[in-house]
């Protein structure tokens, strides 16, 4: 007993002295270990989608770390049960619409907030940000009435957008605009004043210097803002679920596409998993291509300044 303990102690002692001498190596190994754990935690749930998607629907109960059997037909069948491709297409169209509108408006506001001084600037800026932190629920009753043609001002009724892409795109525009404005305000404020001043002194008009100096420099900021807006719009749940009919032909987005598998007569888990993988494809590709931009945009842009 006592010899065993001293044996352990000396091993422990060895380990401790080794760690002290080679603390950098130990630290590095610990770091790699943590990094691998982080990657596994993040990706394991996605891997599980593959497992379920490839497992034949009759054997779902046997699925574990590896699929029980191999049946890729769910990747085809998912389009036959629900017009999934149409739902994904709808989401893409809505996300592109939102991104384009947001970029135009946010670059205007970002320029004004980032580079100009005027009365009421802090109040307007904070007002826009505060409004964006209101829960989506506080908009819904008003938005629902407005976008279904139930509000009339001076005898003119608001348009009934139910069943069009606009019914989701418009609320999402306001939802994503503040973040884009914040991002671009920081971005524009970092462009040196001298450039614009020089253009003004040499006789360029306001619009001229905006067009010749600021616009060409703003591309990187616009790309980051655009990517983040697109991701938010494609992924949105709340308004998409409450303001659309649920039918693919009525421009209902992906929220409904995936929910529709749950309402089928026989629940097919393999189809749900396969459809989820298909739905994340556009976003996964975007993250792969633009990971650096996303990280710099979210970590550097939105909260500094």
């Amino acid at each position, binding site marked *: 007993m006592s010899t065993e303990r001293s044996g352990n102690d000396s091993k422990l002692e060895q380990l401790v002295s080794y760690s002290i001498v080679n603390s950098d190596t130990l630290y590095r190994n610990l770091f790699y270990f943590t990094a691998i754990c982080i990657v596994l935690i993040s990706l394991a*749930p996605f891997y599980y989608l593959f497992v379920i998607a490839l497992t034949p629907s009759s054997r779902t109960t046997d699925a574990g770390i590896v699929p029980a059997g191999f049946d890729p037909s769910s990747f085809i069948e998912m389009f036959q049960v629900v017009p999934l491709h149409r739902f994904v297409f709808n989401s893409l169209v809505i996300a592109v619409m939102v991104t384009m509108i947001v970029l135009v408006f946010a670059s205007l506001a970002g320029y004004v907030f980032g580079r100009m001084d005027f009365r009421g600037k802090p109040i307007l800026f904070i007002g826009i940000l505060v409004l964006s932190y209101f829960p989506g629920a506080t*908009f819904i009753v008003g938005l629902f009435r407005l976008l279904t043609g139930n509000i009339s001002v001076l005898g003119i009724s608001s348009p009934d957008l139910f069943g069009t892409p606009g019914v989701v795109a418009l609320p999402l525009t306001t939802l994503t605009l503040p973040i884009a404005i914040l991002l671009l305000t920081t971005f524009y404020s970092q462009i040196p004043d001298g450039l614009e001043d020089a253009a003004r002194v040499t006789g360029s008009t306001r619009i001229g210097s905006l067009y010749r100096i600021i616009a060409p420099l703003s591309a990187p900021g616009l790309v980051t803002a655009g990517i983040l807006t697109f991701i938010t719009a494609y*992924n949105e749940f709340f308004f998409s679920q409450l303001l659309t009919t649920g039918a693919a032909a009525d421009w209902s987005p992906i929220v409904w596409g995936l929910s529709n598998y749950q309402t089928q007569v026989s629940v097919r888990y393999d189809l749900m998993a396969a459809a989820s993988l298909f739905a994340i494809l556009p976003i996964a590709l975007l993250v792969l291509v633009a990971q650096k931009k996303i990280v710099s945009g979210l970590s550097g842009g939105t909260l500094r300044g």
Partner: protein
Amino acid sequence: MNTTGTIRQTIATVNNWIENRTESQFAYFMLFPVLLVFSVLALWPVLYTLETSLYADSFSQFRGEFIGLSNYTELVTGGRDSVLIRPFIDLGNPFQSILPVTLMFTAVTVVFATILGFVQALVLNGTYRGRSIVRVAVLLPWAVPIVVQGMIFYLLFIPAGAGTDLVNSLGLMGSQPLNESVTAFAIVSLADIWVSAPFIALIILAGLQGIDQNLYQVGKVAGASRWEQFRLITLPQVMPVLMIAMLLKSLMSMRVYGLIDATTNCSTVPSLTCGVVGTFNGSLYGTSAALAFITAILIGLVSVGYLIKYGNSSTGGI
């Protein structure tokens, strides 16, 4: 030729007009479209919802009679039994049961997502080969659609799911963890932590990258260990950013809806927003609007609380 001439002339006139404005006038001119969009699609709906919250529910028309703050008082005191929300803790008082659930969810997810996010930020901040792979992996859970995030955890915890097997083998709970309130709460929290940690990580990463590297050099010379360097340099330096991250995460948690609806249909873990949606879908617009504003008020209180407590110490942001 003629039309291009007219267009050119118009542009020149507009340009001239803009040149003759003061800076303030030009700023408002440029902001006009944004302010218009915000007034119509954000400010107005919020005010309209606020107004609706003062009216009684009515099934025959959009608004019943004007009842002042009754919707609010009845929700807070639990005097309403028509609310179509499934209970979690207290069967008789829907609001008083969804409030504790939301607050508990907020506390749990803020704490654990911050811890996981901090570790992710430290990993993202290193320099090593394969960093872009780590970056993609960390971002992915945050970037995918909410309905997919929910679907993943739904599939993990169906009776045949791998997560259910794990829970069972640990002897924790029955075969339908999503239908039992305690396990469902744990699952929804787990999903939310997995989803939102990257968001926190990216904010903390900004703080980490802002730290003056000379501090570490000084620390090394002074003989500080890695742990001491972390505790005495890293932690205090990122504290302001950490607080902002936790504030933003608290606000997100308090208005949570999509993830809960996608995993449990809002039936076992009702959040405040679940209540709003449930009443909205039941055409109880007055109640729904009042509940939405109670949520907004709570979120406002939390923000103000954070700002009073940490507002002075935070250097950047809001």
